[in-house]
Structures are given as structure tokens and as C-alpha cells.
């Protein structure tokens, strides 16, 4: 698609005469990665679509504030995770006010979801992941699906490697138990 480095894309985004083109390249390069980060947290495609668009608008508005202390991907991952969690928090709050459990609703929706193509065991795995606490869910997704290193996850979630290892261990154990029990 495009072989430009992150640095080159960032420079184009920040230059007045190429900002739109540069940003378009950034979107094309990272849209799928960001989409799947958010989708695995929110499950629902429509919600994910809204949040992903908002994430890129936020990136567009703050691209000049990115100080390059971390990699562009780490920065994007952090924004995506925060936005997805914020959305989830609002949904959960709304669910609480209407006296229903949001995770249960997601599990029910997953069974009828046209955009879910997994088999029975995949469905079981997704239900197991949905039953995890938020932090364990994030760490599991980052490690299991995205193959991120603990150091990278620590940078994104701003936490220690030791805590992440513990979270991942508990998450895996819970998922294993869920699969065996169900």
C-alpha cells in the first residue's frame, strides 16, 4: 500500500502543503490495526466503526502534539484503547441505569452477529474473553492476538511488566476454566 516510514508520514502530516495526503497515508497504514484493537474490545461492528472514526479525528487534531517519545504505533494503540474503554464505560453506565448487564447483552448479540464468522469453539473463546475484567481482557488481547511484548503493553497501558504478566496469567487461567466448564 505505502512503504513510507512513520517518520516520513508524520512529516507529511505536519507540513501545510501535504497534511491531508500524509494523514490519508496514515489512515490507510493503520486503519486495520486500529479497527481490530477496538473491535476486540467492543465486539459490535457498528460501535467499532463509530469509535474508529473518532479515534482518527482525534489523531488528526493532535498529530502536532505527538512528541515522538514513543513509536507512532504505540501512541495510536494508546489512543485507541483509551477511546474504546471510554465508549465501553459509557455503555456500561447506560446499561446500569437501565438495569441490565452490558456483557450479557454483548454475548447475546454475538450469537446473532452477521459479522461473526467463527465456529463454536471461537464463540466460546469470545464469550470467555467477554467475561474477563477490563484490564485482563486488554492484556490478553494484546498478547494473544497482537503478539505484543510485555514491554510494549506496559508502555501502552502505563503499567509494570510484572503486573501485566500476572494479569495475563489470570486471564489465561480463567479462559481455560471457562472453556473446560462450558
Amino acid at each position, binding site marked *: 500500500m505505502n512503504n513510507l516510514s512513520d517518520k516520513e508520514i508524520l512529516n507529511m502530516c505536519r507540513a501545510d502543503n501535504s497534511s*491531508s495526503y500524509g*494523514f*490519508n497515508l496514515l*489512515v*490507510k497504514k493503520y*486503519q*486495520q490495526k486500529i*479497527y*481490530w484493537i477496538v*473491535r*476486540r474490545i467492543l*465486539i459490535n*461492528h457498528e460501535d467499532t*466503526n463509530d469509535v*474508529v*472514526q473518532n479515534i*482518527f*479525528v482525534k489523531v*488528526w*487534531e493532535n498529530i502536532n502534539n505527538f512528541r515522538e517519545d514513543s513509536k507512532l504505533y504505540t501512541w495510536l494503540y494508546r489512543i485507541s484503547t483509551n477511546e474504546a474503554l471510554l465508549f465501553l464505560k459509557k455503555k456500561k453506565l447506560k446499561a446500569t441505569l437501565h438495569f441490565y448487564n452490558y456483557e450479557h447483552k454483548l454475548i447475546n448479540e454475538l450469537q446473532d452477529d452477521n*459479522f*461473526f*464468522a*467463527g*465456529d463454536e*469453539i*471461537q*464463540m466460546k*473463546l*469470545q464469550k470467555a474473553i467477554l467475561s474477563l475484567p477490563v484490564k485482563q481482557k486488554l492484556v490478553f488481547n494484546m498478547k*494473544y*492476538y497482537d503478539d505484543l511484548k510485555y514491554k510494549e503493553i506496559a508502555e501502552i497501558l502505563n503499567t509494570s511488566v510484572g503486573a501485566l*504478566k500476572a494479569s*495475563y*496469567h489470570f486471564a*489465561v*487461567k480463567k*479462559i*481455560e476454566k471457562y*472453556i*473446560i466448564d462450558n
Partner: protein
Amino acid sequence: MNIKKKNINTDNLNDIAPFLSKIDKKNPFVVPDDYFDNLPLLIQKKCTKRQNINFWSKIYEYFLTPKHAITIAFGVILILISSIFIFNNINDNSNNNSFSYIENIIKENYDIDNIDESLIVETLLSEVDTNDIANLVINNDIEMLNSDDIIDYLSDNIDDVDLVF
């Protein structure tokens, strides 16, 4: 007794979750056809729309933040207090100037030290220009006075009405 600390290798799923490790690690979710082809355009449109947000609504949003609203409120209060203070000083000065001006005229023209009320009114009517009276009224912030009010006021406060008419 030797206690061996068991190291759990969390990177190796086989060690901690044999069932999970057998599940094919694939993405079970799908997206609508051509979704990723159209997404950049949707994002571009959204960014452009955000950029074109009305200038005044941006100002409005800016002022809505508590920090700015409090700062602006303090600024307005400060300006109001300063205005009242400055306005009062101007009035005081103009009043002092008017009375000293009349006093000087009387002293120069009549060469007397004791000044009574009728003399002041007589001098006012003969020496002070109507524009000066108008200015005096304006400076004293008497906006709603009409001719009837002035006549009523003078009738109540001046004994010798003929001096006025």
C-alpha cells in the same frame, strides 16, 4: 530443605492452558465488504467537517470550560468595579468644577463673600449656558427627566418661583 520456586512461563500457553493452546488463533470477526476501502474517505470527511465547525461555536465551547468562564467572570467584575469607581470620580470632579465655577463668577461679579440660595439661582439663570445645564444633567446620570419633572422639582425646592419662570 530446598524450596524450588516454580517459574511460570506465561509466553508458553501449553504450560498454563492446554485447551486454549489447541484453539486455532484466528480472527473470528469480519467486516462488511469494501469496509476498509471506504473508511479513509469517511474519516477524511469527518475531519473536514470538524475543521469547518463554526468559529463562534468554537469560541462558545472555549468559554464553556470552567477555567475560562471563571477567568472571564472575574475580568468582567473587575471592569465593572473599575468603571463605577472611575465614573464616580468624574462626577465628583465635574460637580466640584461646576460649583467652584459658579462661586468664582459670583465672587467676581458681585464682590461678596456671603452667598445665599436666591443669589445662586439668579446667577445660574443669567450666567450658565443651557448647554452647561444639560451637561450637568447628563453627568449626573439623570436620564429619565422630562420638562414636567424639572418644573416639579424646581417648584418644590425654590421658594421664589418667579425667579425660575
